[in-house]
């Protein structure tokens, strides 16, 4: 008997016009590590909640079918009975921690289940030790980093010794290092304890290789189900979902597709040997038969749909090197332009004496996308909040369009700097997306011109959702609605704090293309991001912070290769083979070049594997 049995599950949220899940039948065996993948709104998180009984017991709605966990019907079981069997970790570390202190947080679930003091103390101690949280036993959860909070949430979920661990995008708000640590913990728990894991993730490059099995959700149904390599074979079914590494090899027509950088590099090594063995040097030509095969493969597969409202081929204009190649500086040489943002010896200390920024200097010209990167707590958000005067420097100064942001009110700086906070919900309150855009104009005593409003809505691809309530939109569209509201002020500088948090590849592409278009129109786009893949794809330059200091700045081609972990998958793939490969398009081109140089027929190369 399977540990989790889901049969013919159909579910509709209260008031929804269509079902979120439709006839889902899945069985998960004990000890499996299952990755639930799919585009936003495909039903991944809904399925996870159905396994815990939160759907329908907490959410309500119409449901049919059956969900059994260890033989128990979860809809009929009490929450404490289900919690003994299934631990759940949610996406937002802030909203799932119930008590103020680490140890009481871990004890919370155990207390609910009625465990005695001795058992609770023992299990709390064990979890603190396993997750290396001993030193934080009495720490307030509000003062933990994002990674630590997720570790606490994980410890709390595991303290009752459940049979299955369910996790809903647990790394979406973490920097690459913290995310890797959390995912490795999942793998370790799975391997060392045989715990069944159901993991929902958007950034598959982080976890595809960890899973025993992938369930690909599509519009509320199970689209694909199998081992990662097998599921990847049908790669066209993965539109908008394929992580960079397999995407690159798929474009080269290679199969089976690698799941890890290590496997990919083994491919490259064999291709390299084959090329060198041919003695053909830099020859471009290939054998006719192979040429035919390659010609077939060279057709650029677009994994993402066209973006509504963008110029017809914005994603293609981006070029192999990211959006700077063809889009930026349409009106001449930006190098000759005056900098739009100048930061001079900026230091900042919070009122509690905590120094967050130390002696930071840089300047930025318009017409480019610049990323601010660094680990959680490095000072990224603090830095960008100086750009519109939300924070005033303790030392040094920040000039934007010649105005000292420390001297000008935020409301005045808003004419020049548009700021999109981490949580777009902080600024959305109107009943329609259109009204949100109009509100920005009215707040500045500007005339509301429908054509102008439509232009911003079209730019972000929300023209068809103009009359929707912004809070009814999915995470990505909500982000774009907030972006439209900010853009309505027509700022010269656009600051975005973690704009791709929790978005799938498809929506990220959409956001990235919008940013490139804006940079192409001469705006300076400054984005704070943990998402190395996104930054490598869309940014032109990088400011890298560590411990409040600017430890690296410059073009991404110079900065990213300096790092070991903060690099995109394709860079790690080609490191040592081809220098400076940062974008998927460039990686695809390089791979095709390597394949074409292989003297022996491709099947022979592949057979060596």
């Amino acid at each position, binding site marked *: 008997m399977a540990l989790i049995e889901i049969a013919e599950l159909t579910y509709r949220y209260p008031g929804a016009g269509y079902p979120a899940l439709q006839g889902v039948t899945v069985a998960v065996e004990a000890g499996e590590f299952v990755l639930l993948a799919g585009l936003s709104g495909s039903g991944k998180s809904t399925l996870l909640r159905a396994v815990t009984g939160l759907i329908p017991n907490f959410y309500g709605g119409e449901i049919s079918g059956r969900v059994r966990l260890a033989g128990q019907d979860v809809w009929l079981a009490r929450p404490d009975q289900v919690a003994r069997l299934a631990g759940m970790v949610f996406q937002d570390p802030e909203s799932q921690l119930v008590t*103020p202190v680490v140890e009481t947080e871990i004890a919370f679930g155990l207390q609910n289940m009625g465990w005695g003091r001795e058992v609770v103390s023992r299990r709390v101690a064990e979890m603190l030790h396993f997750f290396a949280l001993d030193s934080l036993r009495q720490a307030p959860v509000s003062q933990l980093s994002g990674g630590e909070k997720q570790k606490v949430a994980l410890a*709390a979920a595991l303290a009752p010794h459940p049979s299955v661990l369910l996790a809903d995008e647990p790394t979406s708000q973490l920097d690459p290092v913290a995310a890797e640590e959390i995912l490795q913990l999942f793998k370790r728990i799975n391997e060392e304890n045989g715990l069944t894991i159901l993991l929902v993730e958007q950034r598959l490059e982080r976890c595809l290789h960890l899973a025993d099995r992938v369930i690909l959700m599509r519009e509320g149904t199970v689209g694909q189900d199998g081992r990662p390599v097998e599921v990847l074979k049908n790669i066209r079914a993965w539109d908008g979902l394929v992580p960079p590494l397999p995407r690159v090899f798929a474009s080269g027509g290679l199969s089976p597709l690698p799941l890890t950088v290590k496997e990919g590099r083994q491919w490259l090594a064999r291709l390299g040997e084959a090329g060198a063995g041919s003695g053909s040097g830099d020859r471009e030509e290939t054998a006719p038969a192979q040429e035919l095969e390659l010609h077939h493969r060279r057709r650029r597969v677009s994994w993402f749909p066209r973006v509504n409202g963008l110029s017809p081929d914005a994603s293609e204009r981006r070029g192999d090197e990211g959006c700077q190649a063809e889009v930026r500086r349409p009106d001449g040489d930006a190098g000759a332009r005056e900098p739009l943002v100048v930061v001079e010896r900026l230091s900042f200390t919070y009122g509690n004496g905590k120094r967050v920024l130390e002696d930071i200097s840089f300047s930025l010209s318009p017409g480019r996308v610049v990323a601010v990167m660094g680990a959680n707590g490095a000072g990224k958000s603090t830095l960008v909040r100086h750009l519109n005067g939300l924070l005033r420097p303790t030392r040094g100064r920040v000039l934007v369009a010649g105005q000292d942001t420390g001297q000008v009110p*935020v409301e005045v700086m808003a004419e020049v700097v548009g700021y999109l906070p981490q949580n777009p919900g*902080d600024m959305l309150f109107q009943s329609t997306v259109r009204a949100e855009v109009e509100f920005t104009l009215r707040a500045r005593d500007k005339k509301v011109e429908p054509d102008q409003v439509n232009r911003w809505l079209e730019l972000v691809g929300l023209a068809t959702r103009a009359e929707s309530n912004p809070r009814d939109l999915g995470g990505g569209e909500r982000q774009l609605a907030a972006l439209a509201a900010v853009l309505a002020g027509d700022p010269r500088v656009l600051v975005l704090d973690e704009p791709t948090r929790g978005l799938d590849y498809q929506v990220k592409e959409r956001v990235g293309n919008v940013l490139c278009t804006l940079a192409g129109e001469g705006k300076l786009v400054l984005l704070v991001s943990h998402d190395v893949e996104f930054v490598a794809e869309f940014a032109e330059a990088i400011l890298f912070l560590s411990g409040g200091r600017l430890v690296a700045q410059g073009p991404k081609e110079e900065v990213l290769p300096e790092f070991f972990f903060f690099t995109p998958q394709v860079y790690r793939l080609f490191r040592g083979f081809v220098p400076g490969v940062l974008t998927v398009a460039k990686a695809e081109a390089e791979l095709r070049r390597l394949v074409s140089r292989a003297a022996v027929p491709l099947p022979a190369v592949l057979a060596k594997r």
Partner: protein
Amino acid sequence: MFAYTHRDDFWHRLHPASVLLVCAGLFFPALIFSHPLYLLVLAAAAVAGTASSGGKQTLRQLLRLAGPLVGTVILFNVLISRSGQTALVSGLPFSREALAYGTVMGLRLFTLLAGWAVFSLTVPIEELLGHSRLFSGRAGLVISLGVRLFPLLLEEQRRITEAMRSRGVRFAGIPWSRRLANSLAVWQPLLLTTLERSWQLGEAMLARGYVGGRRYPWHELAWQQEDKLVLAGLAVTLGAAIGALATGAASFTFYPAAESPFNPTALRWLPFLAAGLFWPSLLAWRWRYGPDRDS
């Protein structure tokens, strides 16, 4: 702001019930007493308690929060009260008595806020409630979450206001009608975000087996030597407070003409009250800086 934070200090060594009693020693006299000097001592003791339990930063936050409220109370009383006889400024209908009464009300409010700050900083409320049969179930958790929601709401409000200001929404230098409309622009997302957060929190609690029954505390709350010292001080406070109430020393007449606050008979309980009220803060400072700590 004013969220419980565990620290290795005197206040956090105390049994939560001791802290509760110390705060009650500030709360109830502040509500009952009306003599300005008694209330001044209560407010000063509350400042000392806040500073010794939460540090200068907390004290600054308290002053920032309470300052405008106290100022409003004083101003409001001066403007609306017509019961006083002594003119504050000749020719204007404002009286010194109204100012004195407003100040006493402000001190009372300040003391209550400071007492609350000390309590919320030093007492893990769900632990305390867990030890009470009455509050160990759903009611206790609701209180605990409510207490924690307050600082979260303040943080949300700060973020949303920042987002709105960044969008060009003004909150100053504009007519009242627009200021009100713009304030609504903050409150609406605040309400919506708070509801979303509450939903997420409820979901997380249910996923961890919360069904609203009695939850057993898993920490033994031990009484320390420090508790005995604090309770001794509280006994002095209690004695002085009862004495002041019984003899009417803590009462004060403001209207129509305010009496002198420096009546020696009325002040005879004040040193005892002050000694009892300042005692925990003195112990806390001794614990932090005293010779035992150095060794």
